[in-house]
């Protein structure tokens, strides 16, 4: 049902068109940069060092593409669910639904499942496209790719679920403001943590961890890049995707729990709400 809504309301169309556009731009950009570096590598006589640069550059560009794909998926997750309950409560559409013999929790769960499916497909299109584009042009495949992509999916789900919880209690606009505000906070927190760890500043690292606990989206991305980053780049610390202060498995478990708690909160709030 929610799938059909997304299609009819042209959300999917917008997502697809922009997604394809994104992939096209990315592929062209990758091609140009890759060709340039390849030529340099050839000029250098195919030395090991230049081949290494080529490989690391591919890794960097892949992560850059995935970073954009992640942001788009996260934004899509927030947008999909921000209006869903809030909008239907506001317009009164929900009244005829809830006056049917269904559990209110099923209404929320149904929406969640549909959104989770949509997000999965969307991420598959974007991230899968980026990975495929890099592979077919350079033959490069990042390590722990599946693990990284799953972490990105978890991040998008987290955003979507949290927006759903907000949407059950607040207006769509307030929901959007809250989730993007928290996302921004986590983003900045993540950078403070990384930069803090360069200078061995424990306080800064702790600030980062605190924001991750508040909203663990950025932490998931950090872990994803850690998984997919080649060892050479990590050691050399030469790209912005090098993660110095790595979120550990506890943080991932925390994120999963956070997601479940947000879903439970969404259901509970919606159950107790006067419509």
């Amino acid at each position: 049902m929610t799938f059909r809504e997304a299609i009819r309301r042209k959300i999917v169309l917008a997502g697809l068109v922009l997604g394809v556009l994104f992939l096209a731009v990315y592929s062209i950009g990758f091609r140009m940069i890759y060709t340039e570096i390849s030529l340099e590598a050839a000029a250098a006589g195919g030395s090991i060092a230049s081949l290494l640069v080529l490989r690391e550059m591919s890794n960097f560009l892949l992560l850059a593409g995935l970073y954009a794909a992640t942001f788009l998926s996260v934004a899509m997750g927030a947008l999909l669910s921000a209006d869903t309950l809030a909008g239907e409560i506001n317009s009164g559409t929900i009244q005829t639904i809830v006056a049917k013999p269904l559990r209110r929790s099923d209404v929320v769960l149904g929406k969640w499942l549909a959104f989770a499916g949509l997000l999965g497909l969307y991420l598959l299109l974007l991230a899968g496209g980026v990975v495929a584009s890099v592979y077919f042009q350079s033959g490069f495949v990042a390590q722990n790719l599946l693990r990284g992509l799953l972490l990105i999916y978890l991040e998008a789900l987290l955003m979507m679920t949290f927006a759903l919880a907000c949407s059950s209690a607040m207006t769509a606009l307030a929901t959007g403001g809250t989730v993007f505000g928290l996302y921004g906070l986590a983003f900045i927190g993540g950078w403070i943590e990384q930069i803090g760890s360069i200078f061995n500043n424990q306080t800064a690292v702790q600030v980062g961890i605190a924001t991750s606990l508040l909203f663990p989206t950025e932490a998931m991305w950090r872990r994803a890049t850690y998984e997919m980053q080649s060892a050479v780049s990590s050691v050399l610390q030469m790209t912005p995707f090098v993660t110095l202060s790595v979120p550990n498995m506890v943080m991932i478990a925390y994120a999963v729990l956070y997601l479940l708690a947000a879903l439970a909160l969404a259901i509970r709030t919606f159950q107790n709400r006067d419509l």
Partner: protein
Amino acid sequence: MTVTAIDTDQLRKVYGEFAAVKGLTLQVSQGEVFGFLGPNGAGKTTFIKMLLGLVKPTSGRGWLLGAPLGDRAVLARVGFLPEHFRFQEWLTAGEFLQLHGELLGLEGKALKMRIDGLLDRVGLTPFRKKQLRTFSKGMLQRVGLAQALLNHPALVFLDEPTSGLDPVGRRLVREIIQELREEGTCVFLNSHLLSEIEITCDRVAFIKHGEVVRVLSLDSLADAHAQVTICATGLTEAILSDMARWGRDIHANGQEVTLFVEKDDAIPEITRYLVEQGVDIYSISRSRQSLEELFIETVGKDGGL
């Protein structure tokens, strides 16, 4: 023993400081067409929402078709057309009814036939494949009404069902309510349109500031509130005060006297009495108090604000 369709005991809803519904006690029988009247903001919609489990009562108890409020199973036998009907406008009329039928647990051929029948009944068959976003307010109300009847409900709540309809549409709703009555469905009608209520309902409740102020049967409305106007000469104070035996609110203005009588039988008795007293009568007429007059009398001219 028959189960009452709606039974509430001191149902109450408080929003912050404001009591939207204060202790509403009401019984509606199965098969009855019941009108729920009151000025804007009297708590009518909140009351319906509490019955349907959309709003949690602050206190009090209630039963729908014998089941306590909040019982989900009973909602499969209830229909509801909300006041501010907004539906999934990206659906077509057919898909919309299909969805709501499925939410009610209906399926397959039986549901399809029911949808065909209802679309036909509300005159929307040609628009079956049109998206609801293209519908006018009246058409949405019709499709909403069809939605409320999908499950052959034993009890239907119609919150302002004719607010978006033109005269033809109103007549259609009236006819459908008549059919429901014949099928033995209980209809709970919330409306401002008193003439509608007057034509369709068996009983009405007046509600003001979240309380029922009066419940009356519309059959008795005609008798209980007939106004008699008499034009006569030779009326004395003594005769006028004697007439209090048959009626109340006696007003004399020159040769014209008006009073309210309890029963129509009182009119010939008054006539006989006046003739015996030697009063010359030029005319006697009886007019029934309309529901509108009764409404104003009950809730006050200020509309209960």
